[in-house]
């Protein structure tokens, strides 16, 4: 009798619970001509790692983007519509990413997914989004895999590919550190390996004395860094996230090893890295905060430097930051979030008074967008990749100082060419002009 009771109760409870669950489902907006669009709002969604090991730094991006949307909403929005960004925490777990993406598309009926973060997470939802014809814009990852217009017509990248960055850094090293020995310290995934691929195109393999991968999540990198240090390279290229840039520097300090560090833009945000090194500066004989330990670090950027206070984009973003998200540090992640938010606003405006998903895709493929980037986008009907390159520079006194001119290239065998056009000024009220 008891077992039968159990199964009976089980089914009943499950049903009851699921019923309640479905009762809590939020209704979709009554779209006029597109899901997620009403006469006064546009709702977009995003999946982000807000908690868990991938959260540091990246958890600031979506709130910063939302802050920019709120700023623009306060002056009336775009074409009379306010933008609502719904971002959900997937804790960098691809199962969660898929569940949340389906929730955003099926339950919340968002107009588009914007700025979804992560390669291992987003690669698992790309097929679904394209099947459902949901615009999948500005994926926050430098994987070249977002640039597949035939297979994934609705997916667009935004930041420069890791291979592109690697090529430009490699070229810079060959020109400025000719004949010097090089080593690579890289994250053991697409980010690190694609970066190395780019670097290897320009750096002579015989000059590379050590290549050491690390696993993100395991902070014990002593074995790898010591292997590099003992090989005595003059230049070490770091394809690392900020925590590991800092860990490399600390272990290098321990070994009395002081190479020129060339760091990917992913792991070189001066504020983040110097914050992590803050308490060690005194050890190395400096009396200043962690800034001393990153002095002379070579890196690259595709957005204006935070230290460039005369830049209209930086002043606009700082204004928005101070008013809407003052608790966040004003660092590279915040600028990133606001910059892609601006790009979305541009595309939404281009899509006209009655935006549909197809109009947004067409607006992007038309190309010709200019904005806070130092280099142009690659968007066209044959390419869905974002920024075409980066500008190399050095960190001086805690601030990125660009050198030379921004460079553009592709992620294949194309040449590196300088880009000399002026960056446009930011619009006065932050809203993209028509």
């Amino acid at each position, binding site marked *: 009798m008891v077992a039968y009771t159990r199964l009976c109760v089980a089914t009943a409870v499950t049903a009851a619970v699921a019923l309640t669950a479905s009762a809590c489902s939020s209704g979709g907006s009554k779209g006029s001509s597109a899901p997620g669009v009403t006469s006064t709002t546009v709702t977009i969604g995003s999946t982000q790692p*807000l*908690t*868990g*090991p991938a*959260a*540091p*730094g990246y*958890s600031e991006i979506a709130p910063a983007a939302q802050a920019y949307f709120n700023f623009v909403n306060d002056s009336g929005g775009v074409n009379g519509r306010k933008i609502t960004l719904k971002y959900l925490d997937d804790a960098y777990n691809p199962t969660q990413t898929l569940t949340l993406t389906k929730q955003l598309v099926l339950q919340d009926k968002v107009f588009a997914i914007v700025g979804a973060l992560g390669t291992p997470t987003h690669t698992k939802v790309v097929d679904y989004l394209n099947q459902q014809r949901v615009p999948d814009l500005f994926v926050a990852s430098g994987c070249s895999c977002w640039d597949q217009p035939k297979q994934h017509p609705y997916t667009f990248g935004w930041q420069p590919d890791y291979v592109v960055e690697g090529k430009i850094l490699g070229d810079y090293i060959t020109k400025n550190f000719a004949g010097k020995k090089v080593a690579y310290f890289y994250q*053991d995934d697409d980010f690190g390996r694609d970066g190395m691929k780019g670097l290897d195109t320009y750096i002579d393999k015989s000059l590379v004395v050590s290549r*050491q*991968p*690390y*696993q993100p*999540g*395991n*902070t*014990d*990198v*002593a*074995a*790898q860094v*010591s*292997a590099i240090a*003992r090989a005595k390279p003059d230049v070490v290229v770091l394809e690392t996230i900020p*925590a590991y840039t*800092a*860990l490399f520097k*600390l*272990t290098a*300090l*321990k*070994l*009395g*090893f002081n190479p020129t560090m060339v760091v990917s833009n992913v792991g070189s945000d001066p504020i*983040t890295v110097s*914050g*992590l*090194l*803050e*308490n*060690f500066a005194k*050890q*190395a004989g400096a009396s200043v905060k*962690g800034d001393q330990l990153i002095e002379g670090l070579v890196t690259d950027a595709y957005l204006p430097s935070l230290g460039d206070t005369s830049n209209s984009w930086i002043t606009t973003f700082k204004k928005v930051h101070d008013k809407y998200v003052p608790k966040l*540090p004003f660092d590279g992640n915040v600028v990133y979030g606001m910059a892609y938010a601006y790009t979305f606003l541009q595309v939404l405006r281009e899509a006209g008074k009655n935006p549909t998903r197809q109009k947004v895709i067409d607006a992007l493929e038309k190309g010709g967008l200019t904005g806070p980037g130092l280099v142009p986008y690659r968007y066209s009907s044959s390419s869905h990749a974002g920024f075409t390159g980066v500008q190399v520079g050095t960190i001086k006194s805690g601030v990125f100082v660009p050198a030379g001119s921004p460079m553009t290239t592709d992620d294949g065998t194309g040449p590196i060419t300088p880009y000399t056009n002026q960056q446009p000024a930011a619009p006065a009220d932050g809203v993209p002009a028509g």
Partner: protein
Amino acid sequence: MLRFLDLTLAGLTSGAVYAAIALALVLIWRSTRIVNFAQGGMLMITTFIAYTVISHGGSYWLALVVAVLSGFVLGGVVERVLIRPVEKRPPLDAVVVTFGLLVLLQGLAGMIFGGTPRSYPPAFSIIGFRAGDHRLLFAPNDLWVVLVVCGVMVLLAVVFRWTSLGLRMRASAFAPEVSRLLGVRVGRMLTVGWALAAAVGALAGVLIAPSTFVSPTAFDAFLVFGFTAAVIGGLDSPPGALVGGVGLGLALSYVSGYIGSDVVALGALVVLIAVLMVRPRGLFGSPVGRRV
């Protein structure tokens, strides 16, 4: 040769930390026969407390004392409030409760401090000792870590062996009914056991913090390796915790250096299985007599 020396020194330092965490787990196991999955979370919270002291201008030593004291209090409170109700129940209930506590603590830390990793100062210099014209992969701060862990081990051994508190604690764990009859406040001894363990964990947290930065999830891997070390050494043996910790630290360092960083977790599994197949209760675990 230098490579081997580098890896050995690195393994020694990380091993000392695993040993400290293993010791905390062993202390809790010995007193209440529970595996504390929240150990990593508890030491994370106390390290954040220490960080708060430092960021308000406190010295390293003040922060250390505050961390250990708050660990002591936290451990006692957790035992009294959360663990007491599940002590007599099947062990899996305690596993889930401590897991729940871990998630709760990580969530609270995330709410209060956010996810950004914070920098924590070391006690001493991190510049490696000189040996000829090389610098060793071992700095004064690393020596401090190793010495502190050994010191704590010795201190606990002294307390358990030669003080009446230690005797009462051992009696409460080994024969609670008899101890009660003899006037030992068994419940209080259990609380003290947890409090001590959490204090040791807090110390471990402060020792690790400079090289891992402080964030809600920074210490997760340490719990896993600490537990592995405790199991390798034998869950009821404090010297086992030291041997297990240092042994695991060395083994993982060699795996990372000679084979690759991608198989470190697998290496830990292999070492653990190898030890347990030969000695199912860990290297120094005491075989339990069976009542038939």
